[in-house]
């Protein structure tokens, strides 16, 4: 009676091991695609990141060129129009003066008046 029980126990253990192995490989088989997807996802993510960085650097260069443009275009170094700021800053830096003796005049940072006015008056000054 002891030996059959031992054999049965051994058979049970072997069955358990084989089933466990089968389930494990099945799990691996299922996880492999996702494992293989992960690197490709990572690559895609990295590529997207690089592209974004490249686009960012291009747009930054573009911004830099735009900032340099006023000087290049005007030759006299037109330093108005919110140069040095981003789009949001430019929006904030222009509008219509709502106080004092210039009330109602359009402005763009340190320039006031009609952008199409035929005459540009530049004043270099120190506050003190």
């Amino acid at each position, binding site marked *: 009676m002891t030996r059959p029980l031992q054999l049965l126990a051994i058979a049970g253990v072997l069955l358990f091991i084989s089933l466990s192995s089968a389930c494990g490989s099945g799990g691996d088989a299922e996880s492999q695609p996702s494992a293989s997807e992960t690197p490709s996802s990572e690559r895609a993510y990295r590529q997207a990141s690089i592209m974004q960085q490249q686009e960012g650097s291009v747009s930054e260069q573009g911004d830099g060129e735009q900032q340099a443009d006023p*000087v290049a275009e005007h*030759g*006299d*170094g*037109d*330093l*108005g129009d*919110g*140069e*040095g*700021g981003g789009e949001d*800053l430019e929006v*904030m*830096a*222009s*509008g219509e*003066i709502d*106080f*004092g*003796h*210039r009330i109602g*005049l359009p*402005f763009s*940072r*340190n*320039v*006031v*008046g*009609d*952008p199409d*006015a*035929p*005459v*540009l*008056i*530049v*004043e*270099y*000054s*120190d*506050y*003190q």
Partner: protein
Amino acid sequence: MIEEAVRSGLARYEYRHFIVFGAASEFAAMATECAGDQGAWWEFKDAYMLEGLARSFTQAGALDLARAEGLDLDQFSQCLDNDAHADRLLLMRQQGIADGVTGTPTFYVNDRPGARAIDALLEQIRAAAEVAERAGS
């Protein structure tokens, strides 16, 4: 008088910092540019130049002005602390030197040196407008 020319559409007016009186002036110029980021460039320019607020040439004074104008004080302080517009101020100075500025105030009318006397300057503006009008027609 210049405002009349600007208001009539004849001219636009651009102010450029040209620091000759040292650190306090430079600070005030920086504060003006930082205020300009939030749309208050001319408020600060007038406060410094017209009202002659000596106290506003200090950090505390600039913050008072910024507070009075309802600016974002954190953004304003960060701009000041980082000297965020140092390049812009340097560019203005370099451009002034290139233009031949030796003292302040110095005016230019369509890139030509402007007269110091206001009447002569206005005459220059009118003449420049006529030239531009003839060139445009």
